């Protein structure tokens, strides 16, 4: 039993975090927003140069062969910066799926994606829209249970604006044939299920970063801004609002980390944990952003401060990769599944122990 991250795991996230502190400031976000674009090529290239695209890809496929625990702090750092570019979606979700496909066309696109030469969007059945399809070079689509891989120029899309200035939501159609198939239904289903778990946990990790950043911004403002002759951060009401948000954060964090560590178990508890992580993180991000807006006063309701980016990203992630209804149902099913057994514990003791005691 060890709940700590390894030195290297922290170091990887620190590298990403440093880069984003430099290149993904509020001013950078505002400039990108004003340009009407959703991605910044220079920042994307800089991120790709860190070589993290293959972090979850086995070494024999050209990746680093690391695990979700090695990436969860990176996802958190991306949330903290409200990063517009799809590092989490690519390195954490789509590329691992591509790497799991046993098909030459998938292999070809995998290598491009690993090299930072292509971005691949995934139309996962749990999401009614594909986020970032416009900027993608190829798309993974599901039809009749089969997974298809098609180039961007072979699809038609209908694209909507999101409240998040850096997201575009598309519905995608394409003429899919036997040639475009990259995985048969029997292979596809478990891979999509596994992908959903990863995406859920990494969405949660991003929300954790969003929540932490919202509180940081509010604290900095409250400590500086004076009203009635003293910093508003000295008022108990302001303190208690932020303390309440901080408690939500503190009790989302270990759930997210455990969900990342346990993802491989692929059982009812690990799925409930992923759902729990997302519900708790989305709630923490929402409360922290609303609290931060409130502490900032009218300023918080404007575009002058960065909180609105955090609020909107949290809102978008809340509805992606399964909404409240979806995830709460998974949690409740687990909570009610076998309340007489050991399921109440945080971790399952080994089967042997249980067998002995039975």
């Amino acid at each position, binding site marked *: 039993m060890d709940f700590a991250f390894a030195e290297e795991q922290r170091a990887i996230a620190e590298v990403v975090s440093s880069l984003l502190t430099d290149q993904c400031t509020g001013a950078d976000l505002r400039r990108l927003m004003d340009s009407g674009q959703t991605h910044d090529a220079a920042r994307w290239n800089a991120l790709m140069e860190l070589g993290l695209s293959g972090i979850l890809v086995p070494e024999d496929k050209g990746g680093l062969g690391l695990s979700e625990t090695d990436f969860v702090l990176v996802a958190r750092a991306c949330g903290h910066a409200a990063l517009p570019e799809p590092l989490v979606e690519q390195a954490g979700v789509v590329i691992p799926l591509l790497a799991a496909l046993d098909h030459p066309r998938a292999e070809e696109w995998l290598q491009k994606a690993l090299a930072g030469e292509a971005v691949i969007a995934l139309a996962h059945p749990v999401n009614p829209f594909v986020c970032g399809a416009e900027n993608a070079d190829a798309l993974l689509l599901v039809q009749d249970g089969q997974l298809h891989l098609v180039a961007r120029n072979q699809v038609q899309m209908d694209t909507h604006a999101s*409240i998040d200035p850096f997201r575009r939501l598309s519905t995608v159609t394409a003429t899919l044939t036997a040639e475009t198939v990259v995985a048969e239904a029997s292979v596809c289903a478990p891979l999509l299920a596994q992908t959903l778990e990863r995406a859920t946990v990494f969405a949660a990790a991003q929300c954790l970063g969003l929540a932490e950043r919202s509180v940081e911004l509010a604290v900095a403002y409250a400590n500086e801004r004076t009203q009635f002759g003293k910093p508003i951060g000295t008022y108990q009401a302001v303190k208690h609002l932020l303390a309440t948000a901080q408690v939500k954060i503190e009790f989302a964090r270990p759930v997210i980390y455990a969900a990342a560590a346990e993802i491989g178990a692929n059982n009812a508890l690990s799925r409930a944990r992923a759902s729990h992580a997302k519900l708790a993180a989305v709630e923490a991000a929402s409360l922290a952003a609303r609290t931060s807006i*409130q502490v900032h*006063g009218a300023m918080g309701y*404007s*575009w002058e401060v960065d909180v609105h980016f955090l*609020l909107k990203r949290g809102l978008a992630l*809340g509805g992606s990769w399964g909404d409240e209804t979806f995830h709460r149902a998974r949690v409740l099913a687990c909570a009610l599944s076998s309340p007489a057994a050991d399921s109440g514990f945080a971790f399952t003791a080994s089967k042997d122990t249980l067998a002995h005691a039975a």
Partner: protein
Amino acid sequence: MQLSFTPEQDAFRLEVRQWLQNHVPQTRLPSFDTEAGFALHREWERTLAKGNFGMVTWPKDYGGRGLNLIEWLIFEEEYYRAGAPGRVNQNGIFLLGPTLMEFGTDAQKARFLPAMASGDEIWAQAWSEPQAGSDLAAVATTAVRDGDHYVLNGHKIWSSRAVFADWAFVLVRTEAGSQRHKGLSLVLMDLKIEGVTVNPIPQIDGEAGFAEIFLENARVPVANRLGDEGQGWHVCMATAGFERGLMLRSPARYQEAARKLSALYLEHQDRLDPAIGRDVAQAWMNAQAYALSIYSTACRLQAGGSIGAEASCNKIFWSEMDIALHQTALAILGPYAELAEPMANNHDWLGGYLFSLAGPIYAGSNEIQRNIIAERVLGMPRG
């Protein structure tokens, strides 16, 4: 206690309903925080004025209908039920109009009220400053007397409607060196004069609902001062009383929102966590409770009572109800919630949610309201 409407009240409801059926625009107008939307909303104000439905609560002498509070509540219910446009003239109707009637000279009333009522002049509020938000007494904008004019210098912020409005009522310091609540005056200022620069502030929803106003030697006639010199704080507090009290937030908007929420839930019920039904029921109850409370207060006021610190309870209640109601709608919409433009036929729940987030902040933050409740309703000691 008699909780039903008189035949006259029913008849008035019918009149309003039928007029609205004939006049409300068929399609939703663009936001009045856009230039095109502002013009269309001004047109709507003119249409209302022609039907004598513009300033229904104003006395007949000033071009209103002289509705009592219950009639106003009926009007509001029908107005929201009909899906009529938001009131770009709100500052005039509820804040400056009543203030002018109470503090204005005859000449001021004659000059300003008709154009306000007709929608020809739309008004902005210009009180807050970067260092004077919740702490309004910290206002630093100066107005120095120069003959028949005041010369204004300063920086106003969070001025609602100011981007496209014609006039603003501005809180200034007319006594040099005065402190806090003393030495302030309220002046009525044409926003198009020299020395006035209005910069929109994009809101969280991307629209320019606020502006900052830079005043550099802007000259305002002394005749445009509202109330006595140095009485600005007193006049503002009277205005804030209108704003914070019954007037600003009619219950009909929440009842209409709760009704739409029920419809949204019914539409999606099959695929939803049934627990969301509890939130829908709560939204219905909240909207009902708010309406009953306002009807109750209206009856008391009509019987000669006055509204006191319990208005702070209203503020907290509607602002929290509004956020919760919209959160429920977004939970129902799930992955569709983030769409910047609502899906066909849908209400703009997302816009409403973002708007609701301002609720706990403006018109006196909820923290300040809780202090007021504790100190003035419950009689607890000041800190």
